[in-house]
């Protein structure tokens, strides 16, 4: 390690120690607080409250149903209603990250299709795929778990507006299922089930399309009738759109349920595409790269 690097390391250590001292003396206010911040308290009071007047605490608000999200879960209410635009753009970042990962492989996709055609002609290779992987017990348990994980992820996502959970959590859990199947069985099992790359890309795009349409529908209706309001969940007294249905609390709760389902599809399918591309055998790339070098 040279002198320059030593100075750099010392500077990093000194600045971080200074930061720790400043933080422990309360630079961000007293972290953590004993009370709750006003914004968080507002969201907690209004997320499941459309009929009770809280006049002592919020005297200026005479109609609580303008501010409710029809959800008993604070995080999901903020994620898809109060701070909905933030999540919309975060989802678009996710979209472009997956697109970037796939575009690294775009160069190879033509050769991949060629190889698949050869494989289907030569069907004796496909029948052998069940011999790959681990022992029979592991394979059987993985097949059972594959279905169970999908069911659990669906339950996490569909209950997202009532209990802890939601689209991101369900999608992350859903992505474990193909990963487990790839590890224990093989990636050919996952493709035989029907989770092919292009199918997954279509499902992911479908989920993002549903999110976009749900977000823009109130805006478009508002442009026709006046007073547009983007990502409107429950009816607002100043906007034109009548809001998404919430039959009391407990059945179908506004747009949050639809957003969660669409996000489950988008996140789960997006990660599955990446795993399918990541687990392509390395010999395949070596062959293509050596051919490219030979042509030049």
């Amino acid at each position, binding site marked *: 390690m040279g002198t320059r690097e030593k100075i750099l390391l010392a500077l990093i250590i000194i600045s971080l120690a200074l930061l720790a001292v400043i933080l422990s003396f309360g630079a961000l206010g007293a972290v953590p607080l004993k009370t709750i911040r006003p914004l968080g308290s507002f969201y907690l009071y209004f997320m499941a409250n459309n009929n009770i007047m809280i006049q002592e605490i919020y005297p200026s608000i005479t109609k609580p149903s303008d501010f409710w999200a029809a959800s008993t879960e604070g995080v999901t209410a903020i994620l898809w209603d109060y701070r909905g635009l933030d999540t919309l753009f975060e989802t678009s970042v996710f979209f472009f990250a997956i697109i970037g990962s796939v575009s690294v492989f775009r160069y190879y996709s033509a050769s991949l299709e060629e190889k698949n055609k050869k494989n289907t002609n030569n069907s004796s290779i496909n029948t052998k795929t069940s011999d790959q992987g681990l022992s029979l017990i592991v394979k059987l348990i993985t097949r059972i778990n594959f279905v169970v994980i999908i069911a659990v992820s669906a339950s996490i996502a569909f209950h997202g507006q009532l209990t802890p959970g939601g689209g991101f959590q369900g999608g*992350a*859990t859903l*992505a474990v299922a193909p*990963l487990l199947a790839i590890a224990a069985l093989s990636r050919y099992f996952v493709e035989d089930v029907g989770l092919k790359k292009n199918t997954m890309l279509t499902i992911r795009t479908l989920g993002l399309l549903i999110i976009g349409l749900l977000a823009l529908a109130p805006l478009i209706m508002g442009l026709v009738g006046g007073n547009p309001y983007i990502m409107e969940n429950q009816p607002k007294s100043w906007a034109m759109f009548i809001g998404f249905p919430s039959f009391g609390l407990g059945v179908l709760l506004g747009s949050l349920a639809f957003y969660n389902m669409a996000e489950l599809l988008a996140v789960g399918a997006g990660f599955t595409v990446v795993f399918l591309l990541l687990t392509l055998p390395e010999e395949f790339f070596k062959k293509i790269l050596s051919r490219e070098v030979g042509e030049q």
Partner: protein
Amino acid sequence: MFYLLHLVMLVLMMSIGFVFAFLAIMERDLLKAVVFSAGQAAAYVIVYYLLMSPDIVLAYAAIGVGIYSAVMIIAIKKTERYEKV
């Protein structure tokens, strides 16, 4: 009393996370580093649970311990295992 117990558990889990993070950075063998990193993620899952954020526990347990370590292990298998000095 219970508040202090809660706090002690939190401190313990943060310290375990720090130790695993230190081992993961200092380890020359990348496969071991990934395992230590997964240990750090498991400690942080308990930290999130003690900080009363069940949503993050659900997402982070799947991503931090499952998907992330699997992806890194596949990447190490495709590339090289040992870090040069």
